[in-house]
C-alpha cells in the first residue's frame, strides 16, 4: 500500500494526491493527517486533487471526514483542483461534500486559508 506524503508549508499542511487511491491509503491518510495537525499545530490543510481522475463515495467521504476532524483541531480544510468531470460525477452520485471548502487551484486555496504563499515575486492586484 502506498502512503500519501504530507508536506508542511508555513502553518499549512499540503497533501498532494498523485496516486490512484486504494481504500487503505485513504484511511491511513486520515490518521496521518490527524497526527500531523496535532504535532505541528497547523491552521490549515490543503488537499490537492488536480491529478485525481476519479473520486468515489469513499474518497469523497474522506474529504468530509478530514474537514470535520481538522475543524475540531482548529484547522481549516480546502480541497483544490477538482477536475470538471470529477465534479459532475460527484454531483450525479449524489455526494455533497458538506462543509468542505473548495478552490480552483493551490494558489487560490492558500489565499482562502489566508496563508501567505512562499514569495514568488508575483504581484497581486
Amino acid at each position, binding site marked *: 500500500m502506498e502512503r500519501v506524503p504530507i508536506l508542511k508549508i508555513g502553518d499549512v499542511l499540503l497533501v498532494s494526491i498523485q496516486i490512484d487511491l486504494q481504500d487503505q491509503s485513504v484511511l491511513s491518510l486520515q490518521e496521518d493527517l490527524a497526527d500531523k495537525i496535532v504535532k505541528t499545530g497547523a491552521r490549515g490543510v490543503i488537499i490537492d486533487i488536480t491529478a485525481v481522475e476519479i473520486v468515489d463515495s469513499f474518497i469523497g467521504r474522506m474529504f468530509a471526514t478530514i474537514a470535520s476532524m481538522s475543524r475540531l483541531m482548529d484547522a481549516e480544510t480546502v480541497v483544490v483542483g477538482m477536475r470538471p*468531470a470529477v465534479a459532475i460525477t460527484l454531483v450525479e452520485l449524489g*455526494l455533497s461534500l458538506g462543509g468542505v471548502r473548495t478552490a480552483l487551484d493551490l494558489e487560490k486555496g492558500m489565499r482562502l486559508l489566508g496563508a501567505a504563499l512562499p514569495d514568488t515575486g508575483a504581484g497581486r492586484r
Partner: protein
Amino acid sequence: MTTPPPEELAIGSGDDVVRVRQLVRTAAGHAGMSLVDQTKLITAASELARNTFVYGGGGAVRVEHVVNARGRAGVRIAFSDRGPGIPDVDQALTEGWTSGGGLGLGLSGARRLVDEFELETEVGKGTTVTVTKWTR
C-alpha cells in the same frame, strides 16, 4: 477496428478495486466515451467493486465491449460474488441506505452514473450487478 475481447479480474483485495478502475478506464477509452462519461463509469465501477469486496466477500468482474441495435458502442461490466446476497433489494437501492458503514451511495449512486443497471441476488447464494454505459 477490432473489438477487444472481454476481460475478467478477481476482486479479493483493496488493490483489486484500483485494478478494476484501470481496466474500466481502458475499456471506456477504447469505446470512445467522452471524458465525463468515462469518469462516471469508472466511478460506478469503483463503488460496485468495493461492494463486491466488502459486502460480497470478494468475487469477480467481467468487462466487455457491446454494441446496441443502433450501432452505438458501449461498455458492460458485471460484478459477481458468492456472498450473503441482498435480502431487501428495494431497501438496498434506497438513497442513503447502508449495511456496512458507508454512505449508502454504493448501489443507488452507481445506478445514477450508468445507462442500464441490473441486479440479481439470492440470499445465501450471492449477488450479480451488471451495468452498461453507451457512448453519446
